[in-house]
């Protein structure tokens, strides 16, 4: 099985999985491999750490896509999404007029929330993915999903954000209006006093302003959220799960696969990274070695064997659970993968005509 055949006819590839399983490197490798096959590919990350840049051998990446020179018939582009800039762009796009746009962009709560690292990233990733897809400038978009606590957060991120902005109940409650708060006029006195206790009256006023200025854009956000959802469920999208051969990571990958399939989203396959592979049998010739060294070599081999055994068992179990879904194994390579050369090395496995270490 090859990534190329999984991604045949796909325009979006979403790489997901637990933290520390090589998601970013795999995303970069897939993008490189598909560019080699003649496609114009962009790989996107929202990782605030510079992993993607690192894996492509770059000092850093910005919010603008940038072309990476590789020797390939296609093109390779990469970008690191900056939540704040993406958010600002979207506001500018959805705002009905310049005054609304400026009101939102200068709103204190907006400024704080859009710069805070946590929370808004998943949403931004989906948003940017949708935008780039609409622009049709690339044949394939590869998304390295954030190392989220809950790997599923990003699936309903657009929904959540549009709900937040479009909280009609809240509008009623806070009665936002350009002329100020009308909190008491709606007979919500008790609830208000409770909320006031929690937040303080100033914050309530700020929140009200925030929702008042955002309110005009709610419709735009709601429609976008729907469009993103459709895109995720579209046949042109494929979810790839990345895992290590460790029991824990595999369990998470299987949980994730269920969720993707339950949500009606197209599951592409699973990639098992860094598998300890059994050394192929061969004639052992330790006879002439110093006995002490020979024993060390043997002990080391026993340890390696145990690891390979464990990985083999775990991957076998995964393979049977996956049924006929594609599964690709990348062995633990001797070199540390952190540049284009390393990517070439793992692509021999990702894009092999047929290879499964489990066999």
């Amino acid at each position: 099985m090859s990534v190329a055949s999984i991604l045949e006819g796909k325009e979006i590839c979403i790489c997901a999985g637990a933290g520390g399983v090589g998601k970013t490197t795999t995303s970069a490798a897939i993008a490189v491999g598909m560019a080699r096959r003649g496609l114009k590919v962009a790989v996107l990350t929202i990782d605030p750490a510079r992993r993607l840049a690192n894996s492509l051998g770059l000092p850093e990446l910005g919010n603008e896509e940038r072309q990476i020179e590789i020797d390939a018939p296609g093109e390779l582009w990469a970008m690191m999404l900056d939540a704040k800039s993406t958010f600002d762009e979207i506001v500018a796009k959805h705002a009905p007029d310049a005054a609304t746009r400026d009101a939102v962009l200068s709103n204190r709560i907006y400024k704080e929330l859009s710069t805070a690292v946590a929370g808004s990233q998943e949403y931004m990733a989906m948003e940017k993915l949708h935008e780039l897809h609409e622009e049709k400038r690339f044949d394939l978009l590869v998304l390295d999903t954030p190392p989220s606590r809950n790997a599923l957060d990003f699936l309903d991120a657009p929904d959540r954000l549009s709900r937040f902005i479009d909280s009609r109940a809240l509008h009623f409650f806070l009665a936002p209006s350009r002329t100020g708060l009308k909190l008491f006029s709606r007979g919500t006195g008790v609830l208000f006093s409770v909320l006031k206790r929690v937040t303080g009256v100033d914050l309530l006023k700020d929140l009200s302003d925030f929702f008042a200025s955002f309110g005009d854009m709610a419709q735009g956000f709601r429609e976008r959220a729907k469009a993103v959802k459709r895109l995720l469920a579209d046949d042109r999208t494929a979810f790839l799960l990345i895992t290590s051969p460790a029991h824990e990571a595999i369990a998470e990958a299987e949980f994730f696969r269920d969720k993707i399939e339950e949500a009606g989203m197209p599951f592409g396959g699973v990639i098992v990274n860094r598998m300890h592979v059994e050394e192929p049998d061969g004639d052992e010739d330790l006879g002439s070695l110093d006995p002490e060294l020979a024993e060390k070599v043997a002990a080391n081999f026993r340890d390696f064997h145990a690891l390979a055994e464990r990985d083999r068992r775990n991957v076998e179990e995964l393979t049977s659970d996956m049924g006929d879904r594609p599964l690709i194994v990348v062995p633990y390579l001797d070199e540390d993968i952190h540049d284009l050369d390393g990517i070439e090395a793992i692509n021999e496995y990702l894009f092999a005509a047929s290879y499964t270490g489990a066999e």
Partner: protein
Amino acid sequence: MGKTTVALALGLAAARQGLRTIVCEVAHQERFSRLMGREGVGYEETEIAENLNAISLDQQHTLEEWVTYQLPSKTLAGLLYRNGIFQHLTSAAPGIKELVTIGKIWELAQLHRKSKDARPYDFVVVDSPATGHGLGMLRAPRTFGDVARVGPIRHQADRIHDFIVSDKTGVLAVALPEEMPVNETLEYAEDLEQFRGPIDSVVVNGLYPARFTEAEIESLNGHTGPAVRAAVTEYCRYRSQVEELERLREGVPDAPFASLPFLFAPELGLDEVTELSHELEEQLA
């Protein structure tokens, strides 16, 4: 990186020294419980070993509890919590998860616990989210304090923030001895320095044993077979790990440093984590 394993090992070491300790996971994945080979502990402070408790935070419980603390009566809290508006607002508001999570961690560390009948802890170990997200969690009180400007949220956020930046809190980075994790750790140390000062200690996890000398590997030249290849592989990985470990050390020269061995055990369990906890205790003492 093995954050969960190191967090549990640290908890075990502290508990052995007689400190009443709790290990706290924020992702509601019950990883500690699985490592200990037991049922999940959930949102209950549960003793999992002598002197050692565990709790698994999830957003709903944490948020509900947080609201309760803000209000004078349970009835009011229930009213607010059950009210759709509040649920709505908080479930979607960016950053609120991080805020209530760090708020609960802070609560666990207080001498006078807010939780009813709860006893204080001497030491709270948190298995934090990965670098960027972890820092986001530490910054959440500052962010929300700034949003609120004045009032009860500001007041509370300030207290939590002050605690995080005080010397009662320490940040321990866990890294693998490989190029990308080392870069990430160095970057994290820089960001952390700007936020609250230098990193407090660094633990390198999964270091291959120094089994062979260069001369021994050279003497394998001419020999063939899977065991010989495995020996060469081990040596190559070990060498590249040592280089990365050195680079990390040079990057954070002042931080106390510990390195934990790569364990060849098929799956980690209590025995392995206990072994690691002794290593940590010795090296970070």
